[in-house]
């Protein structure tokens, strides 16, 4: 894992160097004066050999010094932008995963139990369509219909700015609950619903299909037949034999979805102007804000690597067969 992160940092470093205009333009923007460019080139040691430059880049990265933002919040430290926005994206992604799992597992289970029924076929086609819809278009539709036409839910943002909520953790719903400002928690929750559902479609479709396939596979197993022939009640067979075994692959799928969620967050947060990591990335791509881009890409990839490691560990904990191997 350390190796992967090191190579990642090397990739981001090379990526920065291959940008049009190179690192200096990336940090100062296109309109910098030649004197400022020369000064920064010396300050960054761009006349040094490339391996020295990479070492310096690593040192700066470890200290969180990625330079100032030029486009997202001009003048603010890029790492600071990442720190304030990261909890927002975690909050949104957690909501989306909860929605995807809460809908995907029961529906997948039902579809498998009633294999080839109308319900099964409709939900399979639905999940295929869910994957085929561009995420940002779905986000637009939800926003247009539920926020702009029907006024049921807020159009954009994370919370009503008039609420003057107390900040504790950076997770707005949690903040509201901790400080017992119920109205601000509820308001933050309402802001999560539309982007959360838009973000949840693809993980939902994937969780649904994996659950269905895996329940079908487990239903065929000998131990389920044995349990039936022993005369166990259906409830015990379903809960203890079928579901528990069928959910193992689902756990790994959820870990795999974090990458997709990060990408989906770039698109949905942009549509809903939700001030998270994704929106920062989207604006940074639009305005070529390379300071924000490098820190966000590096951290997003690291999050993905860490989550996958956690999933691997979780898998070993819940599946004894993995441990013995």
């Amino acid at each position, binding site marked *: 894992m350390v190796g992967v992160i090191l190579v990642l940092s090397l*990739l981001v470093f090379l990526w920065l160097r291959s940008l049009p205009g190179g690192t200096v333009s990336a940090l100062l923007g296109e309109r910098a004066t030649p004197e400022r460019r020369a000064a920064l080139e010396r300050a960054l040691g761009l006349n040094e050999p490339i391996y020295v430059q990479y070492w310096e880049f690593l040192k700066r990265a470890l200290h969180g010094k990625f330079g100032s933002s030029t486009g997202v919040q001009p003048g603010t430290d890029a790492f600071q932008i990442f720190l304030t926005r990261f909890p927002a994206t975690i909050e949104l992604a957690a909501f989306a995963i909860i929605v995807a799992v809460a809908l995907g597992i029961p529906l997948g289970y039902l579809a498998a139990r009633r294999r080839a029924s109308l319900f099964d076929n409709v939900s399979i086609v639905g999940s295929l369509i869910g994957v085929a819809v561009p995420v940002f278009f779905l986000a637009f539709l939800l926003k247009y219909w539920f926020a702009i036409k029907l006024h049921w839910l807020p159009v954009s943002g994370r919370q009503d700015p008039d609420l003057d909520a107390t900040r504790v953790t950076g997770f707005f719903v949690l903040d509201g609950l901790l400080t017992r400002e119920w109205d601000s928690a509820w308001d933050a929750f309402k802001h999560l619903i539309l982007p959360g559902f838009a973000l949840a479609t693809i993980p939902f479709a994937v969780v649904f299909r994996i659950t269905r396939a895996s329940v079908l596979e487990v239903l065929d197993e000998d131990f389920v037949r044995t349990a039936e022939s022993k005369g166990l009640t259906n409830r015990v067979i379903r809960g203890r034999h079928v579901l528990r075994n069928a959910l193992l692959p689902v756990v790994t799928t959820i870990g795999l979805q974090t990458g997709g969620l990060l990408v989906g967050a770039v698109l949905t947060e942009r549509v809903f102007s939700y001030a998270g990591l994704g929106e920062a990335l989207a604006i940074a791509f639009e305005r070529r804000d390379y300071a924000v881009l490098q820190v966000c890409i590096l951290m997003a990839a690291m999050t993905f690597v860490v989550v996958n490691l956690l999933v691997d560990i979780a898998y070993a904990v819940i599946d004894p067969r993995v441990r013995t191997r």
Partner: protein
Amino acid sequence: MSNPLSPNRKKQRIDDLARSAGHGPVSGEPGAAVGTIADAGHVEDTAGVSLIVSAWRRLRRNPVFLLGLAITLAFVLLAIFSPLIAPHDPSARLLIDKVRPQSNPIPGPEPGFPLGADNAGRDIFSRLIVGSRQTLIVGIMATLFGFVGGLTLGTLAGALGGWVDALVMRIVDVMLSIPSLLLAFSIAAIAAQPSQWTVIIAIAVVQVPIFARLLRGSMLAQRASDHVLAARALGVKPSAIIFRHMLPNSLSPVIVQATLVVASAIIDAAALSFLGLGNPDDRQPEWGQMLGAAQQYIYDNPALAIWPAVCIIVVALGFTLMGESLREALDPKSRR
């Protein structure tokens, strides 16, 4: 942390695919490593028909596959003959007189213009029809480049083994550890001047590690199989073994994946356009670019976004249905 390859599950999933869609029967042992792939070579077909023939026999009767095939064929035909079908020139500003930038930037339907015109007064219906061609080009070219890149890397790794295999797979693993579209966004952002080709390359690069891993998995299975052993014993040249015996037999999971990649390439191109990383030149319409450009006017007239989106969804669904049923048909486990 002895294992530097963290997103193990993603890799495992790809490897499972390589095995499940591979040629010949696969031992049922879940998660079994390279060793069990060893017996993937010999084909136990009672009727003596080839995998492709028996797959086709099942596909012919599969309505899901036929639907996907019909959509895909219609899309390809439309793309080929689009200039003949389109009623108007897609880049002519025919309805520019009707465009009111303040009050009504998107003119509604008019006689002869069933879907109205866009903000530049161009006929949406004609743009949709003509746009199918660029959309097909983006989807096919991105898939093709990713396929060729993955084919090269995967063949190198799977055929040669040893340190080549280790090196190639390390590179592939790092690429897989970056969320795929994020990688595509970053690659597209390198381009000083975004164009159709930067979009295609950005999407293709992301597919390379997936194809490479898939192909390596099935190449390894082939390498350990009996027919390769027999060929080696007969003194067939190593290059002939690789290209004539191993490669053709390892392609089926890769082809399934390629079908699915066309769908995601078309969707990803739309996402790139949405973020301003797509092709800015709109004289040659493309659905993803039309959808990305329509976001500005979505509150004036959502139809401008809905039509290209519907086209994308239908075509992506067509390729997905075809790919998924192909995978099922080529899966030896389902051959009963």
